């Protein structure tokens, strides 16, 4: 019985959750980073457009 358990623990299918976890973590980290950069970029561009309008409306500008 013990031999059977030891052998079955080495079957390729027995470590599939770890395989899934490793690839899931990789995708979450890589796309999470890209999402963070893009969102930050989008927010800053909106802020630039808003401040640009303030500058354009500024009567004190030369």
């Amino acid at each position, binding site marked *: 019985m013990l031999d059977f358990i030891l052998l079955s623990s*080495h079957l390729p*299918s027995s470590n599939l959750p*770890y*395989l899934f976890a490793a690839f899931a*973590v*990789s995708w979450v980290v890589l796309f999470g980073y890209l999402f963070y*950069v893009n969102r930050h*970029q989008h927010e800053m*561009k909106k802020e630039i457009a808003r401040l*640009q309008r303030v500058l354009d409306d500024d009567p004190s500008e030369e």
Partner: protein
Amino acid sequence: MANTQNLELPGSLGRFPSVKTSLAIITGVMMLVDLYLIFMVAPTDSVLGHVQRVFYFHVPIAIMSFLAFFAVFIFSLMYLVKRTPRWDAIAHASAEVGVVFVTLALLTGIIWARPVWNTWWTWEPRLTTTMILWLIYVAYLMVRSYAPTQSKGAIYAAVVGIVGFIDVPIVYYSVVWWRSIHPSPVVGPFAQSDALDGTMYLILLYSFITFIFFFVYMVTERMELRSTEEALGRIRFTLRRRGR
């Protein structure tokens, strides 16, 4: 009219969005092919089983982090010599993406270690030196953030980036110099010629090329973010000067 139209840094790809889009499409397609090769073509390891497929992500990601920190080393040196902001922008973006890659190398390694070594973490030389590498480049980003001015931050970070690179060869040679449970290198000067099956080697090579494209894409995205940050800084400065 205030001069706020020139929002791009010399190193930005913002004026060539088609280059960035093409890079994103090529990277995406290459990644899909890579996943197909990893799950459908690569042979299953007779000892480790399916979890060995983590290897096709773990190894290229770890090597890419070394290359990212090599880029930090080179561009930090160039920045200290020439003081060209573009070199600092590339070093900064490479360091941040390098930290993402080394974080992933640690995480995928931890997940792979559990079924293979029966532990999530052990203070063996490769893991310990990699953890130190992660701390060094997190410190690089912190030094940059907490410096009193942007130019001082760039100089301090460049010094950390140059000195910190010493740890990269230590990480690589750690499995050669010290007794370790981590496997020997599969690429580089200490790699054994018969360490990998031919198909496995080709898929590893393809995966590595895919991550080079991924890295370049991430660095261009980060550099564009930095150019936008600087444009926002300029426009805020103009408004402050006018008392708005």
